[in-house]
């Protein structure tokens, strides 16, 4: 999936992935897509809750079992 900016949040724990994501979204234009890679299992629910409350759109949520530590990959479109 295409994206405009990528954020590596691997190894970070709550609430850092969300805080970094918020910062990342501030650095792209409305409607652009931020890709976030996290390893915190709690980030799945947290990112869904974040999008629901802020109006940004979660385009996709994928899991990568091949990585050394399971990765969760989010594509988030900044609200217009």
């Amino acid at each position, binding site marked *: 999936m295409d994206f405009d900016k990528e954020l590596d949040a691997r*190894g*970070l*724990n*709550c*609430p*850092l992935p*969300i*805080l970094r*994501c*918020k910062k990342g979204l501030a650095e792209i234009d409305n409607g652009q897509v931020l890709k976030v890679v996290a390893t*915190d299992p709690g980030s799945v629910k947290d990112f869904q809750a*974040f999008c629901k*409350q*802020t109006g940004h759109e979660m385009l996709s949520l994928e899991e990568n079992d091949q990585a050394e530590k399971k990765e969760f990959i989010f594509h988030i479109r900044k609200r217009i």
Partner: protein
Amino acid sequence: MAKKLALIASKGTLDWAYPPFILASTAAALDYEVQIFFTFYGLTLLKKDVSDLKVSPLGNPGMPMPVPMPNLMQMIPGMESMATMMMKQKIANKGVASIEELRAACLESGVKLIACQMTVDLFDFKPEDFVGGIEFGGAATFFEFAGESDVNLFI
């Protein structure tokens, strides 16, 4: 209109420093307007240097220990430093943010940090003891914001 979160931070140990700063920084990321009112031992969390925050196993039977031991043993000199050191190591190993980092995130995202003027005077703290960008106020100041907040927590 933005939702509002009002917190009272009343404790000054390393473990109790986390809830107010985690909730405040996250709420700010969720576009909340946030104020934290620091009173009594919570004022410690506003000091310029928060690297000496400690966690005490004494009187805290819920604290996970590497080996089980009677709580009375925790009063032995050095136990507090050891517990603090172990906690800090765990925090770093698990990718948990430091208090400095969370506090900076709060200030950056516009969270208002208010030091309780009465307890500042009570403990003879000086304004220059504290990190920049904070305000001073009393109970009425807190209620001005808390009275119209969606979430109010005492920590």
